[in-house]
């Protein structure tokens, strides 16, 4: 089996206007930067993006935002993106903020065939408004719906030609959940290896979830907040 495509451009060939697209990453860590760049070049419009953050100016989801390609963004924290904040306050982009655990679980549920679940998170706050609540063993929970997408853009460290994926350190974050929750999951990897080149016990995303895979052309690997100490302790 070979799911390899030649490039990011080929991988997103059928991403049309109005698509709902999930993108992995926490801040700039573990974002599918090649796929996002290709999407900015392609110019698809009226997109709904589902991603924890909204990138920064000129990188990640921020690229699509400044190009006016996003109509709606679903995420948990956009504090690093002044552009999005101003676009939302001006009514140009619809922003849905979701608690991060609920966001993760909604995506996980979508991939696991679970249409809804009850969580204690957000009970009595704005995020529970208009939603069904129910009491279990004396505590109130709010019902949250699964969150699927048309496409998932994920970034892994290593992948094989069949689509098995391995992530590295905290670059894993939302990527493995998103890989399960879209009609078409596209993976970009730093290292593409032959089938059999990964240890089966160490695979984070099994190949069944991945439709297309390619080795990213360019990884800027930008660090958002470089914090270091001077001497070794």
């Amino acid at each position, binding site marked *: 089996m070979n799911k390899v495509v030649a490039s990011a451009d080929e991988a997103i060939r059928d991403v049309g206007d109005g698509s709902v697209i999930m993108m992995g990453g*926490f*801040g*700039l*860590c*573990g974002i599918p930067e090649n796929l996002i760049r290709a999407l900015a070049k392609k110019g698809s419009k009226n997109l709904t993006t589902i991603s*924890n953050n909204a990138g920064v100016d000129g990188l990640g989801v921020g690229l699509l935002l400044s190009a006016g390609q996003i109509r709606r963004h679903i*995420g*948990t*924290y*956009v*504090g*690093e993106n002044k552009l999005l*904040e101003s676009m*939302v*306050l001006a009514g140009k982009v619809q*922003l849905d*903020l979701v*608690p*991060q*655990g*609920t*966001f*993760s*679980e909604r*995506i996980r549920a979508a991939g696991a065939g679970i249409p809804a679940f009850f*969580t*204690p*998170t*957000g*009970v*009595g*706050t*704005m*995020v529970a408004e208009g939603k069904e609540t129910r009491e279990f063993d004396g505590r109130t929970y709010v019902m949250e719906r699964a969150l699927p997408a048309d496409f998932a853009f994920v970034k892994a*460290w290593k992948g094989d030609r069949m689509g098995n994926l391995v*992530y*590295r*350190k*905290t*670059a*894993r*974050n*939302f*990527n*493995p*959940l998103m890989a399960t929750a879209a009609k078409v999951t596209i993976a970009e990897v730093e290292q593409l290896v032959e089938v059999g080149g990964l240890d089966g016990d160490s695979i*984070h995303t099994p190949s069944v979830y991945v439709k297309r895979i390619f080795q990213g052309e360019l990884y800027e*690997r*930008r*660090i*958002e*907040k*470089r*914090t*270091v*100490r*001077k*001497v*070794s*302790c």
Partner: protein
Amino acid sequence: MNKPGKDVEKRERIVNRIARELRDGFYVNLGIGMPTLIANHVPPGMEVIFQSENGMLGIGIYPVDGQEDCDLINAGKETVSETAGTSYFSSADSFAMIRGGHIDLSVLGAMEVDEEGNLANWMIPGKMVKGMGGAMDLVAGARRVVVAMEHTTREGVPKILKKCTLPLTGVKVVDTIVTEMAYIRVTERGLVLEEAAPGLTAEDVQRATQARLVVSERLKVMEG
């Protein structure tokens, strides 16, 4: 009033006091900003594991210059290092851990707290859109929630209120409030002032607090 030196002093007092709440074997989640500093004040001989909601147990200190890794960050997006026994996991696993009550202590900042233990720290309608990140899950799921914040705003307006005015992060979730002025517990009978900073009386703390404080019979001086 608020000179930079003073701010550092305030933070130190808050951070030191909260560090004294740590216990050997605790799994702890520290919020972005001031709470992060608590990691530098673990009492000697005590083992505390820090969780980061972006998918890591065992956050270490900042890396040596030149060894920073873009794939290794904390929830504040700062580069960090591993400790012996570090593990990585997905965001869904991370929040299962948090929601499932496996985290002993969550320390986070606040814009407002009220006498019922309600907490607001994620948005100001019409002014600031940042998002709640993991805060709503942390306050709903951690075994104990400690708020670390300055007692009043920069303008001197109380942040400990009868009732929060901003959109809430959680309802009846706060266990303890630690400020540069006081250590306060949220209880059935209201906010109990257990400790006041050196040189301050219970009346001084009450004057900077909108909510009514119940002064503990065992009121102590807050140790930094």
